[in-house]
């Protein structure tokens, strides 16, 4: 069965410091991996995805993520955090040709000024 784990409920980071939000997955077949961000009282917004190719993918707002097949991980990173990055981040996995994601439980990122 497919599953996604986000081991941290909350990540706190000082503004200007690098941030990492962790995600590991379990799927049979080639995974399609995604990160979404949810701001308060808003819908989820697409940040980036890994389908195939380069393991380092770049997305919106300066975020990037690295696909690591051996560790079955897809951690979200940003070199320098902004207070405005504070939000709820969801990792999601799907398999090619399917129509649904399995979402992680979300990680709340708090960037402190």
């Amino acid at each position: 069965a497919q599953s996604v784990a986000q081991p941290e409920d909350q990540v706190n980071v000082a503004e200007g410091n690098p941030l990492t939000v962790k995600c590991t997955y379990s799927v049979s077949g080639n995974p399609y991996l995604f990160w979404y961000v949810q701001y308060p009282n808003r819908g989820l917004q697409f940040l980036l995805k890994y389908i195939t190719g380069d393991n380092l993918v770049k997305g919106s707002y300066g975020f990037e993520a690295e696909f690591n097949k051996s560790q079955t991980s897809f951690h979200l990173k940003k070199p320098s955090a902004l207070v405005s990055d504070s939000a709820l981040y969801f990792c999601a996995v799907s398999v090619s040709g399917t129509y649904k994601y399995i979402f992680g439980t979300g990680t709340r990122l708090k960037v402190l000024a």
Partner: protein
Amino acid sequence: DTAVSQTPKYLVTQMGNDKSIKCEQNLGHDTMYWYKQDSKKFLKIMFSYNNKELIINETVPNRFSPKSPDKAHLNLHINSLELGDSAVYFCASSHGGTDSGYTFGSGTRLTVV
């Protein structure tokens, strides 16, 4: 122009009532979805339609009935509302499956009292 719009944004109703939530997308996508986000922010897919055909029907009480009159609309009707139905319901759309990512609406917060 809002890409995926849901109405109403807030819905407060009494137990036992019947209510509907409407969703419309103007992106030309062929697939639409309903997700439920509970109080712990956990996201779970409920239904998906591709070109007006139901393709995903997760384990959801049959009090919930989706209806897609055309590719741009997906409505959710809920009969005999229960306290446990209180949640935020998100509509989303995509072109094809999950590969291209979803575009989410801003959500409908349903409160059953």
